[in-house]
């Protein structure tokens, strides 16, 4: 493993090259105060084998990763989620073959304890493009380009699922995110967002279609985030450097945070695909008092043109990383929001810590 540690201002960066492609990655924070773990979904292009690896990170020397446990996946992983409850660390992974897998891990040393899989043909046709685990880790929503929205109930030894909606391919979904125990949001082509309420079956309760009329630029939502304290605001990132927030209370007008849109004067840190967005909870507790409820909380995004940046509404975006290759995903450590994990196109991961 080659690694470079460099100090950029108050940023510590560790690059660790993997001999494999990283399809997705997440932090896993168990009970232990001394160790932290990174969950990596990997694809070895030489042997064509996919796997999930849990790597332990040393708090004092983050570039020193060592393999804690690994699980061979039957197919390439499209999305990866980790439940945020330290007592019950649960990893959920969806695949390009339409299967969904849940890995239960030990709360202390993150070793794999058991696994549940859902691989029925009728579940999804083709790849699953987005999943999200509910806060309690008892339910998982999955969406696909096939137009199906499924809810999976995770029992101790059994998985059940029910179809919430099936567009029969008329609408393709690309991302999903829970807003509350009963509500979740999905995103898709044409910068569309849907808001669903389990208590109101039959279809989405609210829909948004971002039409900024930009000719033949692709317009796809790749990632959605919802802040637990403001479940009425949907944050979405997608094509052409676009990051926008849609407030369900003012449905007509989305707030554009980044993107090239004629007539809008937003400074865009990127012009290409925004692969992931997350609300950046770092330093937020200190400054949250200053942010009015009408304003969007700070947002972190990563992009195909190699940018990792924080966007605050009405301010210049702050670039954290500018890589020569795509940053395909990132994750903010929820327990320790100063720490970040990113995966790069060139078979490497970056561990950053903001001080």
């Amino acid at each position, binding site marked *: 493993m080659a690694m470079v540690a460099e100090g950029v201002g108050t940023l510590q960066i560790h690059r660790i090259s993997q001999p494999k*492609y990283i399809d997705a990655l997440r932090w896993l924070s168990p009970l232990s105060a001394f160790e932290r773990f990174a969950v990596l979904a990997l*694809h070895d*292009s030489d042997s*064509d084998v996919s796997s999930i690896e849990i790597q332990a990170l040393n708090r004092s020397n983050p570039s020193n990763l060592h393999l804690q446990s690994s699980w061979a996946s039957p*197919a*390439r992983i499209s999305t990866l989620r980790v439940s945020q409850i330290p007592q019950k660390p649960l990893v959920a992974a969806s*695949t*390009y*073959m339409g299967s969904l897998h849940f890995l239960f891990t030990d709360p202390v040393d993150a070793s794999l304890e058991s696994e549940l899989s859902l691989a029925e043909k009728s579940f999804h*046709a*083709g790849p699953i493009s987005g999943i999200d685990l509910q806060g309690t880790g008892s339910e998982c929503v999955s969406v696909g380009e*096939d137009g199906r929205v499924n809810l999976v109930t995770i029992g101790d030894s059994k998985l059940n699922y029910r179809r919430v909606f*099936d567009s*029969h*391919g008329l609408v393709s979904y690309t991302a999903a995110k829970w807003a509350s125990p009963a509500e979740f949001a999905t995103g898709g082509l044409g910068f569309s967002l849907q808001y669903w309420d389990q208590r109101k079956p039959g279809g989405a309760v609210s829909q948004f279609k971002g039409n900024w009329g930009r000719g033949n630029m692709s317009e796809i939502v790749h990632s959605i985030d919802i802040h637990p304290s403001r479940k009425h605001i949907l944050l979405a990132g997608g094509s052409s450097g676009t990051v926008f927030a849609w407030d369900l209370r003012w449905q007509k007008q989305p707030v554009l945070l980044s993107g090239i849109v004629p007539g809008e004067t937003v400074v865009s840190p990127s012009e290409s695909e925004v692969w992931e967005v997350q609300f950046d909870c770092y330093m937020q507790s200190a400054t949250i008092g200053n942010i009015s409820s009408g304003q969007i909380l700070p947002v972190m995004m990563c992009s195909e043109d190699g940018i990792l940046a924080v966007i605050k509404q009405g301010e210049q975006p702050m670039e954290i990383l500018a890589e020569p290759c795509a940053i395909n995903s990132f994750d903010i450590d929820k327990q320790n929001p100063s720490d970040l994990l990113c995966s790069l196109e060139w078979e490497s991961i970056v561990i950053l810590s903001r001080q």
Partner: protein
Amino acid sequence: MEKPLVMLDKGTNCSSWNYCGQRLATGLLDGTLVIFDSLEPDSSTFTCTSRTKAHGASITKVIWVPPEYGDAVACICADGTLLLWEEVEEGPQLLKWKLCKLFESNATQVLDVQFGISLTSLKMVVAYSDGHVKVYELLDPLLLNKWQLQAEFQNVIDSVAMCGKASCLSASISWNPQISESHHSSFVLGFNSDLPQFNSSKVWEFDEAHQRWLPVAELALPGDKGDQVYAVAWAPNIGRPYEVIAVATCKGIALWHLGLNADTEGRLSVEKVALLSGHEGEVWQMEWDMSGMTLATTGSDGVVRLWQSNLNGVWHEQAALVSTS
């Protein structure tokens, strides 16, 4: 050095990869069409996704339709019929291979078929065992069953001097791979027949103004015009000031340079730059790589040979892949 990708069914007779190398169509002696797919991104694992009885006679050749028109193949069968099979949705999210067009064989048999795309339409050239060539055009870009016969001619330069009825064993067609507004559609065609004037490879170009196909070049030296042609292959041109076409005859593999601009009579200049010998016996297939710098060939000697030109423009055999069990 080699990596196994797919195990083929018993009785497999021919195979063809689609444009991006993710799908393999194979034809069997019993007329079954078998499809192998790599379903995940960037994967080299292939699984069989369809086995369909396509025809009663054995399939001798499979050719993919350009991807702009869907996932479909043309199958040439031993009884001379030509079939178009297409993968479409049937029922909710269920994919199935369906027959969308059948060109019956009468007295003549289909020997080769190749698709060429222009900016506006899809064209299909079919070579028949009587030495005739038919060019069809697709009427509806969404439906592969609506074809219109655009032209029919014989592979001879001077149609007046044409005589007799040819009986052809095989034919080989290769389209100019370039698609652009400035280019007219063109292809090269050669026959393996008992009538010498049909054999030599000719370059046919579509004359938009008069809506007809014209022979613009003949790829044979005066003494070699009757040579039976086994295979032709038009190289991709990424910027050369001339086209390169490979023609395999009983005398070897000839490489031709074809000028880009026509003279006053509408002819393109030709120059034979190499005659490569190596394959003993018949040449089965010739394929250019994506840059048009390496030519791969196979023949009845069971060897795959790779040919390149050196810095001085001298073509030579670069490598030979000999198969062993």
